[in-house]
């Protein structure tokens, strides 16, 4: 027991160091890679990848760990994106953004706080706006969770899918224009390209660091939740509702906790998405987006958090970067504009997904996690090395 605890502590420390190193690398990349560089795609992938990774992990919390098949993710991300956008548009440009309406909400959190606290206020304002985005999504999740969580499997999926579509329609509704800007997009709010840290004469760009940091913090919180007593209760409910109930686990309460938490992080990821893209428009949050996220979860492995992260980063990298050449004529040095033209990328992409699903029935990671797999690999390598030394010793003696 004690030994296990010690080992776990060591594992946790190693994981923490790895994450910290990763953040430092991201920060350095952010400074080194210029927007004109070819490698700038890497930054885009990191930015969008962290948005989708958070979305996929939060969906996995619900679908993979609690066994609630919900398809409302795009709706909650929309809520998050709009909340963030509405509360961070500077007052000066609000009238140009709300061209056809008389804006109802006329304060910007970063601006208000900047006036009273200086540049620290901007940071604080953005953080509060992101949290608010999560809370709004969580509130709506609680509201619709009351009736909807009584449903099971496909029925729950249909109900949540319907909710997401309704939200999208409501946000495009003209009568709500003063708040949501109707079907027009929201823009000019705080976005990642404006995130900088000025120390003396040098400015440190934070445009990739911020979304990555948000994703890392949120995913870490989800990991803590999954490994807590609550997480065990979620997994029990997924495996066998009757037995879970017999253990005294309150089904309604835990399903609600999982649903609300998942939606909170979906809202945060929606806010981060708005931050990365610089615009928020209801039309972008179609059910297609939910399916994409579901695909990342399935590709990575249902019930594996690191799988969801890997799945979403690979998905974003492949669709945004690696396969781009298939659309523009030159791919892997092959110049064939006749074949490699608009749309061919999607064909190849679909084929790749089919192959992955065929060969990795349970996704890339299954329900395992990356750190333990790496730990096993490390042990194996060490084992091989130790054997080699031993056999060499034996050979020497002979």
């Amino acid at each position: 027991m004690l030994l296990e605890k010690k080992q776990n502590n060591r594992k946790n420390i190693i994981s923490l160091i790895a994450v910290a190193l990763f953040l430092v690398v991201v920060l350095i990349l952010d400074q080194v890679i210029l927007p004109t560089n070819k490698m700038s795609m890497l930054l885009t992938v990191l930015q969008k990848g962290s948005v989708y990774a958070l979305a996929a992990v939060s969906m996995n919390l619900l679908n993979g760990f609690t066994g609630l098949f919900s398809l409302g993710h795009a709706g909650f991300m929309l809520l998050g994106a709009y909340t963030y956008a509405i509360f961070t548009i500077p007052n000066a440009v609000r009238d140009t953004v709300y061209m056809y309406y008389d804006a109802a909400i006329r304060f910007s959190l970063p601006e208000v706080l900047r006036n009273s606290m200086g540049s620290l206020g901007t940071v604080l304002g953005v953080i509060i706006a992101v949290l608010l985005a999560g809370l709004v999504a969580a509130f709506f999740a609680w509201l619709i969770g009351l009736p909807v969580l009584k449903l099971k499997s496909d029925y729950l999926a249909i109900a949540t899918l319907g909710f997401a579509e309704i939200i999208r329609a409501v946000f495009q509704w003209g009568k709500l224009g003063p708040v949501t800007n109707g079907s027009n997009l929201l823009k000019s709010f705080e976005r990642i390209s404006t995130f900088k840290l000025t120390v003396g004469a040098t400015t440190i760009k934070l445009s990739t660091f911020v979304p990555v940091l948000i994703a890392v913090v949120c995913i870490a919180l989800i990991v803590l939740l999954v490994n807590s007593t609550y997480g065990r209760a979620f997994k029990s409910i997924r495996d066998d509702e009757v037995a879970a109930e017999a253990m005294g686990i309150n089904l309604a309460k835990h399903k609600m906790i999982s649903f609300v938490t998942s939606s909170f992080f979906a809202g945060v990821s929606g806010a981060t998405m708005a931050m990365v893209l610089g615009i928020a428009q209801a039309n972008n949050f179609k059910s297609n987006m939910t399916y994409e996220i579901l695909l990342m979860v399935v590709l990575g492995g249902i019930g594996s958090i690191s799988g969801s992260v890997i799945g979403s980063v690979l998905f974003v990298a492949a669709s945004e970067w690696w396969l781009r050449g298939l659309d523009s004529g030159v791919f892997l040095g092959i110049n064939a504009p006749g074949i490699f033209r608009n749309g061919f990328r999607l064909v190849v992409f679909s084929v790749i997904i089919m192959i992955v699903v065929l060969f990795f029935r349970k996704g890339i990671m299954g329900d395992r996690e990356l750190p333990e797999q790496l730990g096993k690999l490390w042990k194996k390598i060490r084992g091989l090395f130790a054997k080699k030394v031993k056999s060499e010793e034996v050979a020497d003696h002979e």
Partner: protein
Amino acid sequence: MLKIKDLHVSYGGIRALRGIDVEVPDGKIVTLIGANGAGKSTMLRTISGLVKADSGSITYDDKELLGKPINKILEAGIAQVPEGRRVFANLTVLENLKAGAYLRKDKDGIAADLQWVYELFPRLEERHWQLAGTLSGGEQQMLAVGRALMSRPKVLMMDEPSLGLAPLVVQGIFDIIREINKQGVTVLLIEQNANMALKVADLAYVLETGKITRFGTGAELLADESIKEAYLGKKRAE
């Protein structure tokens, strides 16, 4: 003592229990035998709060349990091993056991009871890291019993623990039931394997289509001719 008085339960129009009275004295093994559909599982599920009753009363140490939520009943000291084992297949053995202690907050007590369960079932300690779904049927039954014991129950209710297990394994399960009882846990056992159940039981009830038709000590019923005929597989004289 667990007392059930004049309990009526119906499932969507079907009256599954029609006024039954059962007493489970502390420290005893009490068994309820009966054919398929007699209402045995219904009674157990009603006691644990999974099924709502129409009328009647269920008291433990003179405290009314009927109508209380499941967690309160569990906290009162009544745990159940559900029919068909129902272990959490994708959780490890250790996680399954911890799930059994879900309502408890006393860390030291949980650790001590984990040791207790491991002593009762050394096999579970050997396999504590393994996914429960990969255990054999008998091991899963051990895990289901161990999981229920992790709530430190005063009364352990078991629904068909011998279901689908090899005869040798069934013998092992019944040995364990005796051992658990010896350590001070009252056992309410529901079985179709009447022969085995009556052998371990101090008290036995026979349930037929929702009513108690016979009761007595295990040995009495075991010797009874009509019981032998109906439940123990003795051939009718031609």
